[in-house]
């Protein structure tokens, strides 16, 4: 199993190199020259959106690469990592987005290469729902608890606090020999 994954990875790397070598210079010269590598099309289909460029492309590349994990780093995103492979991966993300692939398609493409591990935002499915729901359940459950506690406190018979406390404080002050600064 380890072997096959390894093989698949090296096959993908070869593909990446081929795609990069073939299309990157082309894409730099003329945006519409290449519609996308055959391997990409086979994995995630045809681009879903119109082609992107300029500031829009830059922004969406940042967004997408912030949610993909740099496979060789320790828990760092492709956007943050200074490592060479993360730079290469970011270029690839930009290339795919420029061709009009949707962010979901780009995620799918990298997931099919590296596995679910590459997604920094876990997919909303199966067991993963556990962590998507837990924070809300904790917070709103706790909020209900706080409301119940405060309600029951407020319903306790009101205590004549100021009277009690003032008398007590006077005694304390008399003993300690200080004066009040109470508002």
């Amino acid at each position: 199993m380890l072997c096959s994954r390894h093989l698949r990875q090296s096959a993908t790397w070869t593909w990446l190199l081929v795609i990069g070598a073939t299309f990157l210079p082309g894409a730099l010269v003329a945006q519409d020259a290449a519609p996308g590598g055959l391997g990409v099309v086979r994995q995630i289909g045809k681009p879903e959106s119109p082609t992107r460029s300029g500031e829009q492309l830059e922004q969406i590349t940042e967004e997408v690469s912030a949610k993909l994990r740099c496979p060789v780093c320790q828990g760092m995103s492709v956007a943050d990592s200074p490592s060479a492979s993360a730079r290469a991966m970011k270029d690839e993300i930009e290339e795919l987005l420029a061709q009009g692939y949707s962010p979901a398609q780009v995620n799918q493409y990298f997931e099919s290469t590296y596995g679910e591990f590459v997604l920094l935002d876990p997919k909303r499915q199966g067991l993963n729902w556990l962590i998507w729901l837990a924070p809300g359940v904790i917070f709103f459950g706790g909020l209900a608890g706080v409301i119940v506690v405060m309600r029951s406190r407020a319903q306790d018979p009101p205590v004549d606090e100021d009277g009690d406390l003032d008398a007590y404080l006077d005694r304390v002050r008399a003993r300690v020999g200080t004066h009040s600064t109470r508002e």
Partner: protein
Amino acid sequence: MYSTLGQAFVLIALTCCAIGAPVGFAAGATRSEAGGKWVMRLAFGFAASMLAANLVMVAALLAHDFSVAYVAQVGSTATPTIITVVSLWSALEGSILLWGLILGGYIVAFAVLQRRGHRDYMAYALATALLIGAFFTFLIAGAANPFRAVPGPLLTEGPGPNPLLQNHLLMIIHPPMLYLGYVGMTIPFAMSVAALLRGQLGPTWLLPLRNWLLVALGFLSAGIMLGGWWAYEVLGWGGYWAWDPVENASFLPWLTGIAALHSAIVQQRRGSLKAWTVVLVLISFLLTILGTFLTRSGVVNSVHSFTQTPIGPMFLGFLAVLSIGVVVLLALRIDTLATEGRASGMASRETAFLLNNLALVSIMFTVLVGTLYPIAAEYLRDVKVSVGEPFFNRFSVPLFLVLILLMGVGPALPWGASDWRTTRRVLVRPLPGALVGLGIVFAIGARSVPALIAGALFGYALVVTTDQALRPTRLRLKKGEGLPTAFVESTKRIPRRLGGYIVHLGVLVTFLAVTISSSLQTSSEAALNPGDEATVGSYTLRYLKGETREASHVTKQAAVLEITKNGRVVRNLEPTLNFYPGRREPLSTPAVRTTVTHDLYVTLMNTSRDGSIGIRAIITPAVVWVWIGVFMMVIGTVICLIPGSTRKGGSSSAEATELSAAEA
């Protein structure tokens, strides 16, 4: 020689713990005075032998005695003396040895400072602390023994400590700070266990409990901040926090510790939340052990790697035993800490404190679940899953905003019940601050909704915090005292109050700096030949030349860049790529120009044979304020620990407590 001597001291320490813990529990149960004295002596014995063991290790490191396992692991005759000394905490075995010393130091400080008037709690608390000490000493004596003698012929040279830890001063102070925070949680834990065993948590025990919690939290804050600062200065990606499992592990006890501190305030003022405070303190300590387990066992990298050393399973077992013990103890004794609280209304400061606890505990849970889930998923689904920054930010940012809201609303609201008109008055008054905050954040260019909300909440909270911090001074001013006298006198009376609000100010500064720095980064990348220029923001970077520098264990490639701002040469920056033998990818060390308003952060991405380089330059606003804010928190914490002048002369602290309530 060092090996034998060191192991002897460790065994003495273990003996002290093994005898001291049961004697202490028995002395607590029987209220035996003689027993209490013996626990105290054994606690001192533990601390003294831990100190001796650490000194022996430092001596062995300085003597380069490679027959000692730990020296053979991290020592090197080529390392400078200061690095040799601090390599005591550069690897697992040495860290645990230092851990033992710190625990000993805490126990002695606690025993000495709290020895008067707490005899009934003291034996239980020391016994608990020694029980924890027993586990760590057991590790030092066995599985993580740094003094183990190396068999075979004597080595004459070692590899030296981890290179990553050698190249920055911050890495020398970050680990001890963090340990002081982690280990410091043992004292509040021991005090809470003592309160449960005794079935009582009175104000005389609560105040020291709060102070020891403060000490641990102060060190923990500093330790976490230094770690982030180190990552920023050394790792080269331009950030300081990545929600990495190791960072999360240190953040978890911080969150529950802060929650416990706040619920202790409610308990002190209103008598309620006693059991809850104790539960939070117990959880905080369990989280420090969990954190140590996560970071030291390698389990976060892979479920299967943690059995490679016996340390992981041992920590897990210890954590399990502790958790079961805590649950059983709570089940048996929690009813003894019944609430004796007074009634309070919905719109009161108590509600704000409860919501503060809710938000902090929710963040803790989110981070905990997110950190542990990949381990669970690998175990249950056999799939490696990542839970990263996008996930943590999505859930924690709204909760942090709730906290900032509460930092504004909470201190403005009065304790107890209040009528609708008062509530409206105190809550409306600081609103102009919110408008100003919103305006400032908008003016410096933030447009994202969370950042703008944060700006408004910061402004509001800042007004309330300053107002509250200076209230006693203002009251004295009204009575005709001069400004300096009024400030000094009111501060001297209850330093805690001022300290607390300084901590709040620090938190606001840090949160605001994090908000601004994470939402307003601008970066640019460029490939440069010698003589070429690149621009980022108002800076121009000119590539002068490349240099190769050889040092022992590392080859550095530096790029010398001349930095010009608005046409004026500012200085040169020299980012480097460090090539360590045995590492596939080089480590990039950034060069940073820090100013009050922003940082220019330049990383060398690559160098090629034709002399061209790839660089990344990032301008991040306000980064320095992240550290300044934490520094303020630490200062505030220190001020909180200064005893108030009302407490001197033997007047009971219960009275002081009531007096401080009156000042609010």
